[in-house]
């Protein structure tokens, strides 16, 4: 019941916000309050049920159509918990970071909360059809957020985003339907292990599902919607767009494709690992010479997502845990960096890396946290991304040495482009004399950037805080796929 409440509270919140007068000083506190509720519930769940996520209080199961085995089934497990938390967390951050949304703030928040329903739902869904419904439920709000509040290129970007991911999810739905109808149920629990399907059937069904999810991640070369959308989005939308949305794809691989079709996914593993390595290397090289700071962060995001694929393809405890964790850590760092890019662009009036320089002199907090985010992204120990990357690498290398080696070389590339970026943005002499007086992050901005940075640090030092939660679920997956 708690889970259901957490998922649907934002829906009420959307209604509430929509009814309020369109004034920032009224709407923003209300929206903050609304966004805080799911987060508070998740934290309560963590404290009260951390070691016992399959407690009855957290799950619900109603059958809608007996004959087809479709039902409203939600519940939390170790695979989805981290992202369930992150979705609630980043929505709150996005609410705070909506300072660049100049018009129609209440519509903005209402749509953001609708998206939150979908995001939370995806990570809690225990039924294929329900998963799909929530999956699609995020699509329209995200499309609207980009299409209405984005910059001057927003319309083509939003349309591209919509068509790409709609196509992907439709193909995925085809796989879901085939699987569910052949197996006679759509409940994840009953489908685990293949739902009685043979190897060939599993292989055939796995293909469209993986493909559909790959568009969402996105996996190179299906990523060409991403730069346009990320570049056009308002900063606040970027937070959820980069922090949560890609994980709709990866959670599908980790929570659906692998446990439901273990024999079907298995032949694809070397390729999934290879695409993971490709993402890492391609993303890094594409980021390397970007002239736009936001584009650099966008491509870096594509790169680090590759570690999730690599870990997922390992089929061992180390790699799978790394992949599950990387979903969260990637979200933290990318959200942090996008907000900082937004702050810098707003202050200096440019996103061109070549036009910046010396920003840490006038904005030590903004510059310092940009450095922290960049260092996190390049996998520096002490910050959470390192833990998940190294676990993904250890597991991935164990199963696929060649792909693992290529992926490991990515740590050189990410260091290169991030340091190159830092040197030209925050370090060096102050580029323009009038930037001497640039205001450092204000209270609202600090409230948006300090929490993700702090979480990166806390999880970097104490990764067991999340790893212990996800470990039993990963062990369950391992027992299904018979790996070790």
């Amino acid at each position, binding site marked *: 019941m708690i889970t259901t409440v957490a998922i649907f509270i934002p*829906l009420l919140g*959307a*209604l509430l916000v929509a009814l309020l007068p369109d004034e920032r000083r009224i709407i923003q506190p209300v929206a903050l309050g609304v966004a805080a509720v799911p987060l508070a519930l998740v934290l309560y769940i963590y404290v009260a049920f951390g070691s016992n996520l399959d407690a009855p209080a957290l799950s619900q199961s109603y059958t*809608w*159509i007996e004959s087809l085995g479709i039902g409203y089934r939600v519940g939390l497990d170790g695979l989805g918990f981290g992202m369930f938390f992150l979705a609630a967390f980043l929505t709150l951050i996005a609410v705070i970071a909506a300072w660049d949304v100049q018009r129609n703030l209440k*519509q903005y928040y*209402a749509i953001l909360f609708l998206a939150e329903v979908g995001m939370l739902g995806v990570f809690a869904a225990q039924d294929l059809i329900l998963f799909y*419904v929530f999956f*699609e*439920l995020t*699509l*329209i709000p995200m*499309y*609207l957020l980009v*299409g209405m509040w984005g910059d001057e290129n927003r319309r083509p970007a939003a349309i*591209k985003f*919509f*068509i790409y991911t*709609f196509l992907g999810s439709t193909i995925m739905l085809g796989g879901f339907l085939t699987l569910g109808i052949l197996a006679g149920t759509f409940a994840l629990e009953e489908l685990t292990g293949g739902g009685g399907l043979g190897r060939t059937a599993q292989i055939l069904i796995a293909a469209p599902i993986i493909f559909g999810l790959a568009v969402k991640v996105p996996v190179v070369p299906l990523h*060409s919607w991403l*730069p346009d959308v990320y570049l056009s989005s308002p900063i606040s939308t970027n937070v959820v767009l980069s922090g949560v949305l890609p994980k709709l794809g990866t959670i599908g691989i980790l929570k659906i494709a692998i446990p439901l079709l273990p024999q079907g996914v298995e032949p694809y593993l070397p390729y999934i690992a290879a695409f993971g390595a490709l993402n890492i290397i*391609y993303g890094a*090289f*594409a980021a*390397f*010479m970007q002239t736009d700071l936001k584009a650099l962060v966008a491509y870096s995001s594509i790169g680090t997502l590759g570690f999730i694929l690599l870990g997922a393809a390992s089929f061992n*405890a*180390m790699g799978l*845990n790394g992949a599950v964790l990387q979903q969260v850590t990637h979200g933290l760092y990318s959200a942090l960096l996008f907000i900082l890019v937004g702050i810098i662009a707003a202050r200096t009036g440019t996103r061109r890396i070549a036009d910046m320089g010396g920003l*840490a002199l006038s904005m030590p907090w903004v510059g310092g946290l940009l450095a922290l985010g960049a*260092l996190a992204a390049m996998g*520096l*120990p*002490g910050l959470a991304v390192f*833990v998940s990357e*190294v*676990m993904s*690498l*250890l597991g991935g*290398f*164990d199963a696929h*040495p060649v792909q*693992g*080696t290529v992926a*490991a*070389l990515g*740590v*050189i590339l990410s*260091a290169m482009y991030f*340091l190159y970026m830092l*040197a030209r943005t925050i370090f*060096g*002499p102050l580029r323009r004399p009038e930037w001497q007086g640039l205001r450092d992050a204000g209270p609202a901005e600090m409230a948006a950037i300090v929490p993700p940075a702090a979480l990166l640090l806390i999880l970097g030092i104490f*990764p067991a805080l999340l*790893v*212990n939660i996800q*470990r039993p679920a*990963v*062990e369950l997956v391992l027992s299904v796929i018979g790996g*070790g």
Partner: protein
Amino acid sequence: MSAGQQLLILAIPVLPALAFFVLALFGRLIGENAQYVAVFVNATAFIFSCFALFLVITDGPISFSVSWIDLGEGGSFSMGVLIDELAAVMIVVVTFVSLMINLYSGAFMEGDSRYAWYFAVLNLFTASMLGLVIAPNFIQLYVFWELVGLCSYLLIGHWFEKPAARDAAQKAFIVTRIGDAALLVGILIFWRATGTTSFAEISQAAQAGFIGGLLLTAALVLVFIGAVGKSAQFPLHVWLPDAMEGPTPVSALIHAATMVAAGVYLVARTYDIFVQSPAAMLIVAYIGGFTALMAATMALVKKDIKRIIAYSTVSQLGYMMMALGIGAYTAGFFHLYNHAFFKALLFLGAGSIIYAMTSYNIFDMGGLKRRMPITFWTMVIAGLSLAGIFPLAGFWSKDLIVAGAFEKHYYILFGMALVTVFLTAFYIFRAIFVAFLGEPRTEAARAAVDPPGVMTVPMVILAALSIGSGWIGTPVADLFGGFVTPSEFAAGVLAIEEHAFSYALAALSVAVGLAGIALAYAMYAPGREHVAESAYRRFRPVHAFLDRRWYIDDLYNATFVRGAMALGVAVREFDRRGLDGAVTGLGRAVSWTGERLRPLQTGGVQNYALFIVISVLALAAVVLGDALILAAGLLVLIILGSIAVGVRL
């Protein structure tokens, strides 16, 4: 050991780490008092380290750990403390030099705009270095290995508004990161083959045959490449001379005494694994020997006093690597220990000169002997120690290495080491003679004075150690050699035999060192400028070759740096024009087809959106009849509708 003792040992790295957080977060409040916090913390850590050393001497190695990530059968990582004889000496050296540097920095960095931040990072460095030294496994080592690299980056770039400092910091991080990536792959190989990252367990697994042959050599060479990056060995040495853009006390601590020695320490730490691959040992030995010689030649012609000392560091680290490679384990680590003191002192001496006259160029100096007597005499002591002149500290360890190469029949390495002794004595006394003797060449040099006491006291202490630190490892009473020894296993594999102290070899290496000093005097003593000038004219191409660092940096710039950038531009353009262009083209083709089929669809994406909502709704309403879902769906529809009305796309 008792819980109290464990707590005390844990405090050694944790205290500086806490100091980092306090200074980083509350630096503005603490202001000038940052140095007192730092000195207090470092002094405490030093005292505790001495206590740890005492415990190791009396009770043997200290070892305990806590779980960090635990996946049960899937593997687990711990963060632990392993203080054996090797680590015990190392933590004492690290905390001691760190204390000296924190003292010295208080005055040197006075008035700096990021004073508290400087001390914050310096303490983070000390904490990370200690975490590295006490690591019992590769994962913990890697964590702190990267963190010391981060501190190095931040401290080289402390004056980041200077483009040279900014670029040097970036270069240092990227070049060492190449080594780190190799180290990481090495760790991956060990993990895959043995399922563990603990040094001891990997060694046992290798002995049991779980990893061996070419794979073991490959893994070790990869680990060694990590060490090559950190310890600035050829071919990844290029970052260290540039790193001299950082504040000089930083150069003394990080780029002379401690962090750059981490590569040597890594090889020593994993020695039981290394000895199982003779090929890997040979590579270590020859890379070390070659680097020692190469860097010494580069130091011959430099004018910047810090760069001369930096090349000297690269060269001396080469000695240590060579020693480990040829099986002279104790000698290699003994040299690391002695080097820490005299090299830190050389940097602090350079720092006082810079403090006095803000120039790094030795030809801007001159006549400093009279103006800065303390600096002069301490520098001479450090120089003699570096040159390996009896009976100073450097002599004892350097002699062990040179003699070791001879006795183990590595005659090529012996020859290289001996030439390096000559070059070392020459370049360091060239710098000392030019800077301190004769008449001041500039106004600044004329006005130079010794720095305040808070800076000279650490220099005098280090000078005393530069003379005496080696006396615990003399043939009369070889305390050091009896304490830090290779494990029984390693000694067995290497078939180490006792060699009596060779007076002939010792005399030879001292004679060669004195010859180097004599040549430096003949060329650079006051009034002999014409000798150096004519030598320069005669050997101009050689001079250019050395001064351009053997053209290695130029080669890297022309190939790797340019290549990576070109590839970056290529991928960027491919992504935007090639890939995205293709997708857009495909989209156009589809929409062209769509035009033909116009009657079938209405166009806008909003309609698709509406279609999804309505169909989900319809599905819920018709098939499921669930009132709740219907209500929720309607709500969605109403909100979307109101928004669509409220805002026009």
